[in-house]
């Protein structure tokens, strides 16, 4: 299903409803198929399934219950292009003592002992020809949730906003940020 949604153009749920409403009556027989297709297109536009992670890291425990600030782990976010994902060392501040009996934490411990990084799967990724920089967005007061959704309550992070060109430009237009192609393309 992932592959099917990737092939179809992304639309919002609202667009799907309008399209469905306009084109379903003449095609009563095909309406079921159409509805499924439109659902898939809308689903592709609003949420991409979370990739499998090597360690079951849970944001709702850390950023939610423990209320650790995002910037504690994603240190680059306010000053550079990449937010960056924390090193094993940073997890070990706490996990050298917290929950050391858990099998997941033992996986983490193994990385620490062998001095190897955790190979986290990327969730958000703009194409190679796009330049995205976190710093100016955070400086301009755009909250993480605006683009990433309520990560603090997610057990596993998944992409909830399209972040395709029209989406970026929509917000840039509203905020009088740059619409020059050279701002986002490299």
């Amino acid at each position, binding site marked *: 299903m992932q592959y099917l949604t990737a092939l179809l153009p992304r639309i919002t749920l609202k667009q799907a409803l309008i399209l469905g409403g306009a084109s379903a009556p003449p095609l009563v027989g095909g309406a079921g198929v159409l509805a499924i297709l439109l659902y898939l297109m809308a689903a592709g536009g609003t949420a991409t399934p979370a990739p499998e992670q090597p360690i079951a890291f849970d944001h709702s425990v850390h950023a939610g219950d423990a209320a650790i600030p995002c910037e504690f782990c994603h240190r680059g976010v*306010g*000053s550079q*292009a990449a937010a960056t994902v924390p090193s094993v060392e940073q997890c070990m501040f706490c996990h050298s003592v917290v929950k050391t009996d858990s099998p997941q934490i033992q996986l983490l411990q193994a990385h620490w002992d062998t001095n190897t990084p955790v190979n986290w799967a990327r969730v958000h990724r703009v*194409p*190679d*020809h796009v*330049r995205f*920089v976190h*710093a*100016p967005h955070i*400086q301009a007061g755009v909250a993480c949730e605006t683009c990433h959704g309520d990560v603090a309550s997610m057990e596993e992070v998944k992409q909830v906003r399209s972040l395709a060109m*029209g989406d970026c*430009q929509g917000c840039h*237009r509203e905020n009088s940020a*740059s*619409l*020059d*192609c*050279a*701002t986002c*393309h*490299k």
Partner: protein
Amino acid sequence: MSSSANEAASRASAVSSMGQTIPTDAEVGHPEGVRWGMVVDLDRCTGCQACVVACQAENNIALNEEQRVLERRAKTWIRIERYWEGEFPNAKARFIPVLCQHCGNAPCETVCPVWATYHNNEGLNVQVYNRCIGTRFCANGCPYSVRYFNFWNPEWPEPMNNQLNPDVTVRTKGIIEKCTFCVQRINRVQVTAKTEGREIRSGEVQPACAQSCPTSALVFCDLNDPESAPAQLAEAEAGRSYTLLEHFGTDPGVIYLKKVDPHAEIHEDEHVHAGAHA
């Protein structure tokens, strides 16, 4: 100026075939009135090619193997043109570094059917690689021959593939590429300046070519910034300054400085003599 205003007006209502509105000139870019440009002092250029190498490395330009050069399909966003003045033994080598002139009135921009090349509000002639469909009209329209077509997908032998610059797209087969004035460096400085809550300092942006020039023959600047040293230089040295193929009216953003050699004429007379004797 009025012509660009007309152009902006005619673009204001432009709607692409996909039904999306294309941003107007006023909406595009930063309004500060920056015009990025370069002053090239030919009296300082020694033709060492450091700029060529630096540019190649910074911008992920494919390697120019011998075969490519022979086919005249080598890519060098900046190249050193060499001219001989006089005859041996009274010969002098003259060098002219030629790069995209970022023309204010660029012939390449008007011929692009998909608006993949356009002028931004900071005086850059921008090439949007992912937009380019490879008609090559722009390369044919460019009087300076500084636009290069990718006839092949670029390849780098190990371990050179590991030195690619992540801030620059690797261009695929079938599209045009050219000097960007290292727009990735301009963007980076702009974000840094914004994060630190200040204006960009004069001379803070350095493209790879200017940075690597051992004699400072290439100097990058905001031509509209009266404070910038090169802009002042171009002004002060008005007698020495010219632009390439001025009579085409392309309004280049690259200004060349060259002292007219008072002896050049004498040499020429000598040749005439030498010729007459022979």
